[in-house]
Each structure stands twice: as C-alpha cells, then as structure tokens.
C-alpha cells in the first residue's frame, strides 16, 4: 500500500501518522506539503491531526482551502482512500467531503484520554479486520470533536451504515451526536474520526487496537 500524509502549517500528528504507516506497511509514506497542487501516486491519503493554522477561526477551515485539498478531493472522487484523523476529520467536514461539522466539546475543554469505542460497521476498507460490535480503545486529544449534523443527515448516516465508530455508551468525551466518533462518505472510501488509531499501534504506548485499521487498509489496497 502506497500512502501519503498531508502536512499543513501546524499539523502536528504528521510524524505520528508517518511512523505508524511505516511500522505497519514497511515503507515510508510521502509527506506532502499543503501548497503542492498534486498528490503522488498513492492508494491512501492521510490528513493528520494537529492544529492546522492554529485552529483559528474554525478547526480545519483554513486548511480546507489549501491547494492540496483540490487534489485530495479528486483522489476521493476517483475512489481513492482518504483517512482524516482528528484535525484531519475537521478538514474533511470543512471541505464537505464528509457531512456535518465538529463543534466545541460540550464541556468546552480540551480532552486527552483513552476512550472506549464500538466498531459499528465492518463493511469498509478501514474496518474489515474488526468484528462487528468489537470494543476497542483509542486515545482522543481534541477540543472540538463534538459531531453535529441535522437529524436527517444523522438518520441517513445510520441508515446507510456509515457510522463506523461510536463512543461506548457513557464514554462520549465531547457530547457528539448519537455518540458518533467516525463516519464514512457515501462512497465509503473517505473516513473521518476524532480518536487516534495511529497512537495505538505500539504496545508500549498503551495498546494495539489501532493496528487492525491499518491492516484492513493494507489488505484491501495492496
């Protein structure tokens, strides 16, 4: 699987994503600066976590206007996989590659802790190695992860099996609607999620629950 990690000014999980990808795939991903107009020939594009443009104005808003995002959109339209983690998820909603919006956490505080998630959907290139309803623990680290969409959109997401990860009951860290932690686009090739799978691929760092996400991708895209 060939992959690329987009780097925006003040992305800060770009190295984490690259390390996890390298560890899981055996090869280094391309690091792509936001001002580039084209993507290298890759199967997977990762929009990493961080505070692109300081998260000023709205998280992900300014990054969504970067030159590279046009290429990312094209990649997605052609069916290429795009994974947005944390700030990357925010960029994806701001770019309208995913519906809804990520608002300030309900208690207005940044939250960093491991959270329990339920894999709600295994029919995707990201989750086929998980079993349906599987409980996993990924860390979250964000101030704006409170997923919002109107009821119609939420119903649709649920109806179409696009809610891939949910916070375990009672473990919702941000007030997210219907405990949503991660969603797919209609074509199911774009995934955005607030928790960090790339931070749980090494047992030293508190777990390996994120590995199957990368293994799923490798299995499908290689």
């Amino acid at each position, binding site marked *: 699987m060939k992959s690329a990690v987009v780097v925006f000014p003040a992305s800060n999980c770009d190295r984490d994503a690259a390390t996890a990808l390298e560890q899981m795939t055996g090869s280094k991903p391309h690091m792509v600066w936001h001002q580039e107009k084209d993507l290298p020939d890759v199967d997977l594009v990762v929009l990493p976590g961080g505070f692109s443009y300081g998260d000023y104005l709205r998280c992900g808003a*300014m990054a969504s206007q970067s030159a590279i995002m046009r290429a990312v959109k094209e990649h997605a339209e052609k069916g290429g996989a795009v994974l947005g983690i944390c700030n990357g998820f925010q960029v994806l909603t701001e770019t309208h590659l995913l519906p809804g919006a990520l*608002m300030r956490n309900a208690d207005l505080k940044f939250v960093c802790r491991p959270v329990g998630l339920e894999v709600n959907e295994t029919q995707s290139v990201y989750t086929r190695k998980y079993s349906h309803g599987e409980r996993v623990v990924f860390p979250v680290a964000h101030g704006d992860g409170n997923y919002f969409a109107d009821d119609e959109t939420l119903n649709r997401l649920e109806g179409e099996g696009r809610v891939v990860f949910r916070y375990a009951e009672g473990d919702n860290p941000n007030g997210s609607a219907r405990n949503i932690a991660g969603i797919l686009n209609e074509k199911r090739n774009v995934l955005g999620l607030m928790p960090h799978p790339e931070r749980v691929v090494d047992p030293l760092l508190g777990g390996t629950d994120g590995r199957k996400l990368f293994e799923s991708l490798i299995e499908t895209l290689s």
Partner: protein
Amino acid sequence: MKARVFVTLKNGVLDPQGKAIGHALNGLGFGAVGDVRAGKVIDLELHESNAEKARASVKEMCEKLLANTVIEKYEIELKA
C-alpha cells in the same frame, strides 16, 4: 471601507459555549438572563471604496471561509 461580519450559529444548532455562559451568568447571580448565544465578530479593513463591490466580496469571503454554512449564518455590516 470597513466591514464587520457576524458569524453566529443557526437556530437549532446547539451552542455549548452560549449555554455555558448563560449558566455561569446565572451562577453569578444574574437571574434575569435567559437564552445566550455566542458567536464571532470579524472586523475587516478593505481597500475598496465601492460599497456594492465591498459587500459582494465580503459575502464571498463568508461563503468560502468565514462561516461554515452547515452550522452558521452570517451578517455583514459595512462602514465607510
């Protein structure tokens, strides 16, 4: 020319910050405070003297960047 843009959450979109402010104000003894909504104000200096053109351009800025129209609405005020 100067423009002031207000970006506020659409009705129906929950506003944790507004709610928290309302709660805190009540807690401080301001009992007469009802609903509170929080938003952003952005003041722009424009090198443009034609009001028509200025408004059109600020509108475009709002649509493109300043507001997320999935959840937010905006108002524009121009001052000479």
